[in-house]
């Protein structure tokens, strides 16, 4: 499929809102999922380390 120019590609035959709206939201949602997972992991590791610290305080 030869689009010719970048403008043609971005315009998607007039359906730009729908096509790019779909692709960008999909990309956004998948990346958001990964970011949320990373945050969850960081929080958990922090909690685990805090627990170790707390236990060490008790003689």
């Amino acid at each position, binding site marked *: *499929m030869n*689009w010719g120019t970048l403008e043609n*590609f971005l315009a*998607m*035959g*007039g*359906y730009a*809102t*729908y*096509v790019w*709206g*779909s*692709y960008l*939201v*999909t990309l956004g*949602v*998948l990346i958001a*999922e*990964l970011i949320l*997972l990373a945050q*969850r*992991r960081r929080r*958990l*590791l922090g*909690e*685990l*380390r805090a*627990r*170790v610290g707390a236990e060490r305080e008790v003689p």
Partner: protein
Amino acid sequence: MRVGFNWFKYSSPQTFFPLAGKVALAFGTVAVFACAFGLYIGFFVAPTDAQQGEAYRIIFIHVPAAWMSMFLYIVMAFWAGLGLAFNTRLSGMMASAIAPTGALFTFIALWTGSLWGKPTWGTWWVWDARLTSELILLFLYFGFMALQAAIDDPRRADKAGAVLALVGVVNIPIIYFSVKWWNTLHQGASVSFTKAPSMATTMFAGMIVMALGFWFYSIATALLRARCIMLERERTTDWAIQYAKGMA
């Protein structure tokens, strides 16, 4: 007597945890390449559609996402059922790990379906069989996640979720066929996304490759989430604490 590869070694969170990490990385990498290739096919190889113009290119996300949403529910129910039958902790954790990813793909299927419907059929929502079934599937996912969130005891949450997921998976064909019937009854010769515009081989190839990409992405994400769940549930164990210290 030596017994080949010992699979059961990996049925404990402690041993599965590092394996999950490595497998997730592998599948994640392949997923990126697969999706890139799929998008290349979708935008630069597949031709313009005669009836729908460029709007049809949404199909390269919509259909794979819909396939994933249903496939993931079945896989989730499988793991949940395994956990219920054999009382294995890890199986229940896998089921819980898959659910949010499945729900996400269901949302993507609905969102792209809506954006595809507007230019093609004129409305932001079309009550066709596939979209309506996807909507009900989204509710099934939410129900599963809500039930597990409402139960504090992880063992009860796993088992209760398993019963719900199994009841759900048995009902999905019934739901799909009921909705299909309902759709034809009320619309007669109905328009449908399932009858894809004269599917050129390249279009089909693009969909398959994207589906593979989504599949590998799902495996990677589910495994990463399972690792988080393991850390949460095993927070009092040595290995988890050692791991956290090691990551400092």
